[in-house]
């Protein structure tokens, strides 16, 4: 059941603890902002009921509301949500956690440059071509999905941690998982033959064998007969491990044979690693070892 018509759309209570909208439903999408203005945008197919409910109790039924100056907890209710094809929340000063929805027909899901906190619940999003949650403060593991139609996957510049699972993502051209706190990578980099950007830099994958495995997979990816473009791969920075000599050999194949651009931390045990640490030889975890 949803309450989309008056008198249920506004909260009649103005004193604590009743100031949050008691008429809200689980069907609504809630977000809290602290900025001066709000200009979120959705696009829909057909004529679904759209109801924005602002923290001051006012409402809006346009897909693209303007001149909203509300600060606090707001909500969006669309009946039904399957009509939504585009969600665009760029620079909306969202400071809360959010609870995403299935958004089965969404083609683009963008929450860019806010300060969204908490965990990110992901869904199958079977029609999404662009899934973009970058430049926020998400703090959780990230459950990646098959996302068969995804072309752009932007999850960079957050605080995701733990394992990053790589899926085949046959349609993906750009993978951005950089500037997070991922500590391991699983899955194969062989199938993403449309990929032209692969950004993993600024994470904490300290296993040189995982870096080697990635490079080994990428050589197979680069050799695929269906590949038509080169790729820019970056797995440097943060506390990322460099490759071993075997990984370096595969890096050279990617660069010299296939024309890719590859950025990595220095090879494990190389002079470059020693130089950057004042002549101390380190292992893949950055700990000093005896030569």
């Amino acid at each position: 059941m949803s309450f989309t018509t008056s008198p249920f759309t506004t909260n009649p209570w103005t004193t604590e603890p009743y100031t949050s909208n008691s008429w809200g439903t689980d069907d609504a999408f809630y977000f809290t902002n602290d900025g001066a203005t709000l200009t979120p945008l959705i696009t829909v197919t057909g004529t679904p009921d759209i109801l924005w409910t602002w923290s001051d109790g006012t409402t809006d039924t346009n897909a693209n509301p303007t001149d909203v100056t509300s600060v606090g907890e707001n909500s969006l209710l669309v009946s039904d949500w399957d009509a939504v094809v585009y969600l665009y929340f760029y620079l909306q000063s969202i400071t809360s956690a959010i609870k995403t929805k299935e958004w089965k027909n969404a083609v683009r899901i963008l929450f860019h440059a806010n300060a969204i906190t908490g965990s990110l619940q992901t869904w199958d999003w079977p029609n999404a071509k662009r899934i973009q949650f970058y430049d926020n403060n998400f703090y959780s593991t990230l459950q990646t999905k098959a996302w068969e139609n995804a072309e752009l996957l932007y999850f960079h510049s957050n605080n995701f941690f733990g394992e990053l699972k790589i899926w085949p993502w046959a349609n993906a051209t750009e993978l951005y998982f950089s500037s997070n706190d991922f500590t391991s990578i699983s899955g194969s980099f062989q199938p993403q033959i449309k990929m032209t950007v692969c950004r993993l830099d600024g994470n904490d994958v300290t296993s040189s064998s995982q870096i080697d495995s990635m490079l080994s997979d990428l050589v197979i990816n680069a050799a695929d007969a269906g590949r038509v473009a080169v790729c820019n791969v970056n797995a440097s920075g943060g506390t990322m491990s460099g490759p071993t000599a075997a990984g370096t050999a595969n890096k050279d194949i990617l660069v010299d044979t296939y024309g890719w651009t590859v950025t990595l931390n220095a090879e494990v045990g190389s002079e470059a690693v020693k130089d950057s640490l004042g002549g101390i030889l380190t292992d893949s975890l950055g700990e000093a070892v005896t030569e």
Partner: protein
Amino acid sequence: MIKLISKSLNISTGVEAQAHSAFNKEGSSYNGVTKELTITQKEVTGEDWRLIHDGKKVVALIEGQGITYTLDRCLEFKTEKEALAEIDKMGLINEVGK
């Protein structure tokens, strides 16, 4: 800092060499007598911004960390702003990170 590393790949014919992705890269040449395709790998280090391009479009714009390896052309800039200004000046297509 950009270090140039010259390498030779054994390629049996000129046709095969021309089909190689490195053939048209800066610093590449094929010697039909020795059957060698000479390429120049760039190894870019340092904290400057690295603009990698192929003369027409931006291949990568990298905030300096780690080591970048490429056969494409490299320029280094102290700031991202300077790099973006050069991209505009050179008229490079920049679709990186859009």
